[in-house]
Each structure stands twice: as structure tokens, then as C-alpha cells.
């Protein structure tokens, strides 16, 4: 030991590794803190092994701020480790790990508003692009990749039939039951048929189908296209001189226009059937139900539902694809895109439904 008598000597022993370093590190720092004015000698002669955590420990001890003269010296460290330790300069690590700056509330609101306005502007531009592509497709149907359209339609439509049937049926059952209970008090059970008919055909068939598809298909579109963007497939498409809207978005929009109305008709049928089944328990036979139904609803009601469904379909596909195309980098942003696709399309579906209600009243 070369230190003067008032030196503090810390002897490090054994193997200091990621798993064993924590208590040693703490005690060493405590010893340094207890002796702020005395030089400290760290004896490394009995060290068997040091990994990078051990190196960090030694470095941390040497870089502590101390009173003048109260130096921390490491003795008998293997020359290769000493050389490695010499490569680290305390000032390189002086700044604390940078954290994102915390924004003020007002700034938060302003930024969020600006972001949403920008998003709406972008979405409008994108929808414009989609409409242009649709017009193109109408004048040159041969240019559309109908194989892709059919593939997407199968995945979006045929594979969604069971869930749509289930939802439609349950909607019919629930409405008929709830309205039936109230109507029975007034002896107006037979009018429940009108209610179920109009509700299913004009509103719920299209709305429920659209919401199911927003969750199922909108998210899938966003995730697919988002992953393609992350993998630079979109860049490849662009450099081939292809338009991503025509190549990726148009087939999906066409498929959605095709399948959402069809699924809505299915939902309408099973919904009415579910309603009819419930009405039998209110002493209205199936035959009575359907005779009454034919008088209560018109072809316009059905058509309105179907047109709405087509508009919802375009909305779901366009919003899903738009979110996918806007994906940033990395797995997290694909998840964010899928979430944003579902949320935005459901909000838009409800808003558009409201517009339809006002315009057709």
C-alpha cells in the first residue's frame, strides 16, 4: 500500500459482473461519501474478473466530484482494463440522459389542434386522390387489377359473414324485445314490427356492419399497408412509377363498395328474422310479422340502407389505407396506424350517418 496513513483503501475482490455489482457499487459510493476530504485508494489487485458493469462501477468512482486533494486512485488494475477505462472521459457522460421536453398545456392544445387540422387537410387531399382513381377506374375498367379486388373482397366480405350474421341477428332480437316490452304496456305490440323494420333497414343493418368492418377490415388495411411502408415496399412501388393509390388503395375501396352493401343486406335479413322470432313470444306469428312488415317499410328504406353501406365502405377503406400510408417507422407506428384507422372510421361513420338522417328526413 502506498497511500499515506489517512488514505482510505477500498479493496475490490472476486468477480464484479452485472449480477453482482449492485451492492458493491452502493457500498463503494457510500465509502466515498463518508470520506469527502480524504484521498481514496481503490485496490484492484484481487479482482478476478470485471465485465462492463464492473467497468462502469470503476469509472463512476473515479468521476465523483471530490474536495481538492481527496482524489480517487485505482491501483493494480490489469493494464488492458486500465487502458479501456482511460478511454472514458467524465465530461462525455456529464449531461444527464436527455428527456423529451415537457410541453405546457397551452402548447399541447395548440399542437394537437394544428395536428388535427393538418390531418383533415391531408385526409381531404387523399379522398380527392381516391375519387380521381375511382373515376379513372370507371373510364378504364381494364386498368383495375380485378384479381386483387376479388382477393380483398373475399377476405373482407366472405370471411366476415359469420360475425355480421351474428351481430345482425342479435340486433334484431334485442330491438324487438326491448321495444316489445314497452309497446305491450300500451297494447301496441303490432307496431313493433314497423319499428324493427325501419330500424334494421334504414339504420342498424348498415351501421352495425360498418362498425364491425371498421374494427376488422379498417385495422387490417392500416396494418398491412403500414407494414409495407415500414418494409419500404411502398418506396419500391413508387420507384416502379406506380401510384400507391391506384395500386393499393383502389382495389380495397372497390372491394369495400362491393361487400359492405352485400353484408348489410345479410344483416338486414337475419335482423328481421331475429325480430320476427322474438315477436312470436308476443303472440305475433311469423306470417303476421312479415305481412305487417311489407306494409311498414318501402324499397326506399332498403335502398337508403344500402347506399349508406356503400358510403361507409368507402370511408372504412379510405381511412384504413390513409392511416396505413401515413405510418412512421417501426412496429409501434403500425399499431398506432391501426388504432387510428379504427377510431377515425367509427367517428366518421357516425357523423355520416347523422348527415344522412338530416338529409333524408
Amino acid at each position: 500500500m502506498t497511500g499515506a496513513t489517512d488514505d482510505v483503501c477500498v479493496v475490490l475482490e472476486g468477480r464484479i459482473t452485472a449480477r453482482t455489482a449492485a451492492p458493491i457499487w452502493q457500498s463503494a459510493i457510500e465509502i466515498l461519501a463518508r470520506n469527502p476530504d480524504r484521498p481514496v485508494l481503490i485496490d484492484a489487485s484481487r479482482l478476478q474478473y470485471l465485465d462492463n458493469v464492473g467497468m462502469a462501477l470503476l469509472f463512476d468512482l473515479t468521476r465523483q466530484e471530490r474536495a481538492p486533494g481527496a482524489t480517487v486512485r485505482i491501483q493494480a488494475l490489469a493494464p488492458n482494463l486500465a487502458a479501456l477505462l482511460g478511454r472514458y472521459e467524465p465530461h462525455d457522460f456529464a449531461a444527464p440522459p436527455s428527456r423529451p421536453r415537457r410541453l405546457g398545456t397551452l402548447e399541447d392544445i395548440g399542437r394537437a389542434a394544428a395536428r388535427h387540422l393538418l390531418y383533415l387537410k391531408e385526409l381531404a387531399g387523399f379522398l380527392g386522390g381516391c375519387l380521381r382513381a375511382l373515376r379513372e377506374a370507371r373510364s378504364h375498367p381494364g386498368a383495375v387489377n380485378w384479381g386483387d379486388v376479388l382477393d380483398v373482397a373475399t377476405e373482407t366480405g366472405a370471411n366476415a359473414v359469420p360475425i355480421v350474421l351474428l351481430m345482425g341477428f342479435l340486433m334484431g332480437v334485442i330491438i324487438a324485445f326491448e321495444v316489445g316490452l314497452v309497446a305491450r304496456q300500451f297494447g301496441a305490440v303490432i307496431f313493433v314490427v314497423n319499428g324493427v323494420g325501419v330500424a334494421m333497414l334504414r339504420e342498424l343493418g348498415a351501421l352495425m356492419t360498418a362498425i364491425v368492418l371498421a374494427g376488422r377490415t379498417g385495422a387490417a388495411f392500416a396494418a398491412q399497408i403500414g407494414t409495407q411502408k415500414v418494409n419500404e415496399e411502398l418506396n419500391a412501388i413508387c420507384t416502379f412509377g406506380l401510384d400507391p393509390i391506384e395500386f393499393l388503395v383502389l382495389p380495397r375501396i372497390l372491394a369495400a363498395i362491393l361487400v359492405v352493401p352485400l353484408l348489410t343486406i345479410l344483416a338486414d335479413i337475419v335482423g328481421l328474422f331475429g325480430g320476427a322470432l322474438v315477436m312470436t313470444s308476443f303472440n305475433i306469428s311469423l306470417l303476421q310479422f312479415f305481412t305487417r312488415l311489407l306494409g311498414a317499410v318501402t324499397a326506399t328504406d332498403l335502398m337508403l340502407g344500402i347506399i349508406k353501406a356503400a358510403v361507409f365502405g368507402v370511408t372504412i377503406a379510405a381511412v384504413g389505407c390513409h392511416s396505413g400510408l401515413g405510418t412512421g417507422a417501426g412496429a409501434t407506428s403500425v399499431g398506432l396506424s391501426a388504432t387510428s384507422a379504427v377510431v377515425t372510421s367509427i367517428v366518421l361513420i357516425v357523423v355520416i350517418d347523422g348527415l344522412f338522417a338530416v338529409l333524408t328526413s
Partner: protein
Amino acid sequence: MAETQLQSGKSGPAPTGQRPAISVRNLRMGYGTRVLLDDASFEVHRGEVVVILGGSGSGKSSLMKNIIGLHAPMAGDVLVDGESLVKANATDKARLQRSLGVMYQSGALFGSMNVLENVRFPLDQFTDLTLAEKNLTARMLLHTVEMLPAESLMPGELSGGMLKRAGIARAMALGCDILLLDEPSAGLDPITAANLDRTILSLRKNLGVTCVVVTHELQSIFAIADRAIMLDPISRAIIANDRPETLRDFSPDMRVRQFFNRRPDELRAERHG
């Protein structure tokens, strides 16, 4: 003089220096019924830098996945520090895998964390260090791979080379003394690649780290490799296992000599001729 002894409590089994860090015995691997490599045996000794090379599709990366236990071999065994990774139960396998630091081809950083958090992740999971201590360790590793200025960036904001360097820092975080690197210098500029090679050599020299490197960058191979193991997709076997210089100059196998003697200047002559 006041003297305090600070001893590591649970020292754990020290590497003996006798057992090979990794030994592969009669390994047969592949996908489904397609065999990529059959009856392959080799050892990687402590402190050695071994390069696995071979043409595209010869199964270099698959061999690495077999060594780290991500794929189960069709036959044969892989021993890490004398213990079988193939026959180990789930707990032992996880422990053995933790003793291997792995850098994947594209870095495989977690997209939801920034660079510093990625490197700190193994320390967060497996040590009792305080946040400041973990941060210092992680930042020193980032300094080693020259990534400290990028510590607060997200993986999506990094270039390919930066992803690889951050991946190496993360692989080293738990102080693993066996590192497996999958194509560390592929796609990097020559200067960054040379720095990476320097990092690998310095790890070997200063911390005694054992490295298994999958690569086909000739310059890198001659710079870092103590030994090169060459795979051949046609004979599905290891066709060379020796010092790269020896293989280049004296290998009896023409495929091996060709690989090591690729002469860019001849091609240049062809272009101009």
C-alpha cells in the same frame, strides 16, 4: 489507513478457461425436410474470434440460430460452456441463453423504446442496479460503439449502421462473455465497419470476450478472425476450419481458395478490357 473489502457475494461459476465456450457436435439442421448442414462439428474456445462464412443460402444465419437455441437442431448437440442447450430444460435454457449476447442482422431493437432504453433493457430486467448506475453502464456501452450522441433517438430514426451498433451495445449490456454477431458489417461504410472490427478486437483483448461472427466481408474476416469456418450449401458441410490466411494460401479446396482470393482488381481489368 482504513481498509474496506468489497467482495462480490455470489460469485457464480467462473469460466474455467478449459471448456470451450461453444461446442457444436454432429449438428444436422434445416427447415422441414430440407437439410442445410449435416454432421457439423466445431468448437469455439474462450477469447477466440471465430467467423462463420459461406455464400448466400449456405445456412450461416440458421447455424447461428441453432447455436443460440432459437431453432432446435434436427440432430446433434450444441454445448454452451460445457452445458447442452438442446437437452436443457426451459429454465436452464433461458439461463444459458442469457449468457450469450446476440446481435441480430437488423439490430432487432425494440421499436417502442429509445436507444438508451434499449441498451438498458437487459439491465432493467436482470440486475438490481439503480437507474443512475444502469444509465451510466448503458451510456458507456453506447460510447464504446460511438452511439452516445444518438442515445435519445428512437430505432425508427436510426440508419442501418446505427441500428447494428446499438444492437451490439445491447448484446453486451449484461456483460456476456460470448457474443454472437449476425452480419455486423454488412451494409456499413468502410470506416464504420473498420470501427466495428476495432470494437470487436478491443472487447476480445480487454474483456476476454469470445465472438462468433457471421459475415462474408473479406476485409473484416482478415482483420478480426482467429479462425474461419466455411459452410458449403452443396455438400451441406463445413468445408474449411482454420486461420483465414492459411485457408487463403494453402487450402486444398478450390471453393475455399476462390472465396478468399476474390480479386476486385481482376474484375476491374475485365471491365476495362
